[in-house]
């Protein structure tokens, strides 16, 4: 069975919010739209967003690290938001595992948002129905688009390629290989929701240089050199 999902590489996310704006742009006019903004130019603007980039600081100064953290629906394999829906508006697609809301059935009771530990469902202020990330279902299933454009808007927009999209049930897909080989993890595993989206941890690229790599221990000329050095240029400093 197919389970489409995103894999987000925190190692390369620079926190530019391009995924946030491209998501808003695409979905405001797409199948899931409109994504209403209330009071957009006023003092307290608010609106519907499927995706947000948050920023966290890990550690204490000076040993700190900034983690930019894109957050959207994780399309759980055991979505707790689906069984609680009283109308059946919230559902998980059988063919590709995407969790969606049928806006024509939703009564706006907000119960599903209570049943999501990640806080990724938002009630649309004007339509008064629950909205959430659709993985750009209208793009990824659109056969009229060229194959490489059948991806969520956020994935296409990401300038650092921090967002990978694919079938996490196919062991040879790019996303499965990334999760397997680069330590992909799920958020809040304690709840057993089995999120399909995974995150790749930050990894530091470190150079390991040992002492004998700087000092040529096996220099044959040193063996025969009987000079006592006191800080001046030695044979080791000579370029051979």
């Amino acid at each position, binding site marked *: 069975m197919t389970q489409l999902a995103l894999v987000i590489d925190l190692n390369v996310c620079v926190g530019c919010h391009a995924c946030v704006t491209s998501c808003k742009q695409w979905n405001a006019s797409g199948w899931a739209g409109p994504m209403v903004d209330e009071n957009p130019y006023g003092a307290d*603007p608010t609106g519907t967003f499927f995706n947000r980039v*948050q920023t966290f600081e890990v550690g204490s100064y000076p040993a700190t690290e900034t*983690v930019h953290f894109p957050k959207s629906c994780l399309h759980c394999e055991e979505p707790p938001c689906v069984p609680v829906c009283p109308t059946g508006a919230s559902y998980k697609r059988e063919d590709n595992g995407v969790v969606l809301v049928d806006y024509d059935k*939703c009564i706006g009771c907000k119960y599903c948002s209570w049943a999501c*530990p990640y*806080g990724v469902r938002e009630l649309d202020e004007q339509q008064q129905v629950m909205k959430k990330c659709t993985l750009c279902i209208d793009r990824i299933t659109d056969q009229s688009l060229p194959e490489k454009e059948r991806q969520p808007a956020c994935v296409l927009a990401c300038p650092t390629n921090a967002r990978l999209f694919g079938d996490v049930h196919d062991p040879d897909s790019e996303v499965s290989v990334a999760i397997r080989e680069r330590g992909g993890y799920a958020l809040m595993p*304690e709840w057993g929701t089995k999120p399909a989206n995974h995150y790749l941890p930050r990894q530091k690229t470190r150079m390991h240089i040992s002492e004998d790599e700087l000092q040529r221990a096996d220099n044959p000329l040193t063996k025969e050199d009987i000079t006592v050095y006191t800080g001046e240029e030695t044979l080791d400093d000579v370029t051979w």
Partner: protein
Amino acid sequence: MHPAFSVIFLTTLIGAGQGLFLALFTGQLYASIKLIEPQGANFYAVGSVLSLALLVGGLGASFFHLGRPERAWRAASMWRTSWLSREVIVLPMMMGVVFLYGLFHYLGWTQPWIVAGDGALPMDVTMVLGFIGVFVAFTLFVCTGMIYASVKFLEEWHSPYTIGNFTFLGMASGFMLAAAYSAYLGNHLVGFYGTWAVIFTLLGLATRVASLIRNATLKHKSTLQTAIGVRHRKIVQKSQGFTASSFNTREFFHHQSPEFLKLVRIGFLVLVFPVPLFLIGISYVLESPTLPIAAFVIQYLGLLAERWYFFAEANHPQNLYYQSIA
């Protein structure tokens, strides 16, 4: 969580409505086996109207919680998985039973079909409806409680105490209302209903205090570490991604100070438990027709505060992602 008044009124009003129906039928049952003074048809008919009014009021309040109330009928469809859907089915059933119970009393269709034993326990249509109503009322208490208790992410609610609280506090206010109703009519059932009201208030006190103690020492499963998956003891949010408000910052936060919460907690602990018990006790001694009414009103106001606190106390794990604006 943000305490929504629609849900506060829904749960407290239908709780009192169910409790009042249970009180009326308890009275009928006791009267039928001649333990208390029997009442006329109007006592049950008007009492049923009162109970039905509370249930309808609660249902009306619940519509204000919905974004699309015109589609509310759809909510009955997913009863296999959703406790909310189950409540949506059982609440109208409760209303139907209360309506018929009151109607048959009013029409005087109380000719018994079978009389068990020596004139005791005459089985008539109201008796059958009463037993059905008891079953439906308890089912409704369980459904209402389970809406909250079944959400495992809200750990303050995810306990059997939640169902205990909804059941006992609903019954306490319903029997208290029955006592107030009897006091208003001036019949001799004030002591009978008052005693039951005291018993259910004390049971409610036990489960409510138990849940307060449980929640005071509750250790949440999720932490900022599991929320973003970084294993470090010190993580601070620097930005939530936007500077204004969103559904996430409105729905899941009560936006009140800890002092205010404490005030509400003390307020409901005083108004729901000791004050009504004291008033009902005094009214028994003084045979006052107004004190039981005051006891019910004060307990109901306390229950509004209790339900407000129930919502405000619950801390949703999504709040971990919204600790700092920028």
